[in-house]
């Protein structure tokens, strides 16, 4: 394919040929004609030789499997075969998403002798979770004068599913002290008159069940006073995470992506909750995605979520009104509901009122601030613009959280670093208050 610059030069030289003939200046006529035909010959010889051979190269990509974890190295082998009887010279590159760090022969120059088979390998490691494509592999070659370029596309595309890194889900491991900071010692829900474990005594009031009166303490102080035994029992609650997985979560760059960070925090919180012998379930939702994982008092739903997010990429839109409907329809038992969203799409808040959003379940909303995911640069002008945009965004989020707090849904603005702490703080509060049991 002749490049635009190639057409430009050919047009200029053609014009000079015609003008030289109009002027009748023989030397320049010869010069411009030879120059024109050298340029065109270069294109014709290139197209009929090296460029045509490029389409004959056999290329195959091989991978041991198509599943990996974040930051985990994965080896890709690319096999080139020259079936022709001529030497083929070309450049190549494999198309990779920007979430991959690639090292090795993912691009380069190759000279293949007739019949030669060359095996090249490169290693990729992903910065973020999700399903990504590897390929198509592009072979290209330019003519010596760089007037045209020929690209042969090897259409085979491989998919790689990337799950969360072990380092991101540290709460899965039991030996870390930090894993207990939020959850240790809140397994029990105190409730007088029920349960099997003795908790303590207090003075009897008329509404107490007389069956729990501690008769051995009767008249302990003034001879007439009655005391009641307080018992406690372990109560389990279900926590549901409603995760906005719309394209609005696809913010960030490099190794800082909103959906990746949110999933890490959700998984960490979920492992902590599961270890606390409470149930945890998930709803990954957008206009394109609707994946529901029912709550169970085990790590099984969390493993399912890990598998699920390795096969998904944020897409579609997100609207909060739909979420409340889903909560009402899908969660039959009482449960604590955590909704995580950056509110990237316009919402018709005027339509929402306490009746619409009343689900009968304690609901907490974590509104994500996107400032942490914006690209930071040293440029002072850019910094100022970013700061200004960040302040505006914060103001909007404050208005949103204010609205939800006003109609009975506890909403907080969460940033990248504090999301896990906020999950666990709200979970602890719900646990202590016996919400969701």
């Amino acid at each position: 394919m002749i490049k635009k610059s190639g057409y430009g030069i050919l047009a200029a030289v053609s014009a000079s040929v015609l003008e030289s003939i109009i002027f009748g200046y023989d030397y320049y006529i010869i010069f411009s004609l030879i120059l024109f035909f050298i340029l065109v010959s270069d294109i014709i010889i290139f197209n009929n030789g090296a460029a045509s051979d490029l389409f004959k190269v056999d290329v195959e990509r091989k991978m041991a499997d198509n599943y990996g974890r974040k930051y985990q190295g994965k080896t890709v082998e690319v096999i080139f075969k020259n079936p022709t009887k001529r030497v083929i010279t070309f450049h190549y590159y494999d198309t990779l998403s920007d979430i991959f760090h690639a090292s090795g022969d993912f691009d380069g120059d190759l000279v293949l002798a007739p019949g030669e088979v060359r095996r090249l390998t490169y290693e990729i490691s992903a910065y973020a979770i999700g399903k990504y494509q590897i390929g198509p592999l592009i072979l290209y070659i330019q003519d010596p004068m760089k007037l045209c370029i020929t690209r042969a596309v090897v259409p085979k595309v491989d998919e790689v599913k990337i799950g969360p890194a072990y380092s991101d889900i540290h709460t899965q491991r039991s030996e870390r002290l930090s894993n207990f900071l939020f959850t240790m010692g809140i397994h029990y829900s105190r409730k007088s008159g029920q349960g099997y474990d003795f908790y303590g005594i207090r003075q009897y009031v008329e509404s107490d069940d007389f069956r729990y009166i501690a008769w051995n303490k009767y008249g302990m102080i003034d001879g007439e006073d009655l005391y009641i035994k307080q018992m406690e029992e372990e109560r389990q609650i279900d926590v549901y995470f409603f995760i906005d997985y719309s394209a609005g979560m696809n913010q960030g760059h490099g190794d800082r992506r909103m959906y990746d960070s949110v999933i890490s925090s959700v998984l960490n919180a979920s492992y902590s909750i599961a270890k606390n012998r409470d149930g945890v379930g998930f709803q990954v939702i957008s206009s394109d995605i609707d994946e529901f994982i029912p709550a169970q008092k085990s790590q099984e739903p969390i493993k399912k979520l890990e598998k699920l997010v390795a096969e998904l990429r944020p897409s579609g839109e997100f609207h909060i009104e739909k979420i409340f409907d889903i909560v009402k329809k899908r969660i039959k038992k009482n449960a604590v509901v955590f909704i995580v969203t950056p509110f990237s799409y316009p919402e018709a808040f005027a339509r929402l009122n306490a009746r619409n959003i009343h689900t009968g379940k304690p609901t907490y909303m974590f509104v994500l601030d996107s400032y942490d995911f914006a690209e930071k640069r040293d440029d002072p002008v850019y910094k100022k613009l970013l700061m200004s945009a960040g302040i505006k965004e914060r103001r909007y989020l404050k208005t949103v959280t204010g609205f939800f707090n006003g109609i009975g849904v506890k909403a907080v603005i969460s940033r990248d670093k504090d999301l896990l702490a906020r999950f666990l703080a709200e979970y602890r509060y719900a646990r202590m208050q016996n919400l969701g049991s």
Partner: protein
Amino acid sequence: MEENLKMIPINFAIMLPSIVLAIYVIPNIIGVVYLAPFIILSILPLVRKIIPEPFGRNFYPLVAVVVLLLILLNLVLAANLVATNWFFNLLIIPLNIETAITLTMALSVASVLEGIFSSSLARSIGFQTFSLLPLLDQVFVLYLMQQYSYTYLQAYYEAYSQQIISLIALVVTGSTNIFGQKFPPPLSEYSFPIDPLMLAALIISLIAIMAYFVIIKENKLKGEVLGGIASALVLGGVLGMIVFYLVQITTGYGYELFVAAVALVATLIYAARSSPERKARKNSAHRAKNDL
């Protein structure tokens, strides 16, 4: 950096025909052009070279905007749409033929300088062609001045009128004959003083284009590049000479432009159609049709 330094002498050799013509033409037009804007516009490539990189990229668009704004201001003032004042008087450029010549010639000299500092062969050839055309126009103008004792401006009008008539003749009749009236190529009958120098410059320019591939190592695939370009030089030379002789033969009948145009267009069409991507697309479309 090293490659760029090697490029400068090669570019200089490629641009040599333009440099020779510029040296011949400029002394003759000094009295016609507006000197200050001519010099300022001509040295713009040098100014761009010394401007730091992030700003250098926007230099020419900025110059173009300034020049266009000046022209717009002059049009507005000429139409009496705004009242003139001392500041506007400073910016007034007379909208006449001398200004057009100044701009054209400055553009030509700037192209020569840009060609010398260019980073690729394709750009050098482009700048060479771009700068040569207005300079050849000027050679024609100088020829008319000497041949018919015209003033510069009379010769200038005549030169462009003849060119336009020749082009119209080519488009309408397919030759440089209109109703039996011939428009002979002017420089074919005239030998100007730097002719031998020009011939040498054109040969050096061609040699420099070939030398580029030997001297400049653009990538690891140098051997392959040299193989391809050698064939292109031989084939190009042969085809160029054949077409030149055809042009010479048909000159007597006034069909030289037509023959050259046909040869150029046919070769261009063949070059465009030889693309393997086009063939691959055609094959896949054919397969799809058969499958259906």
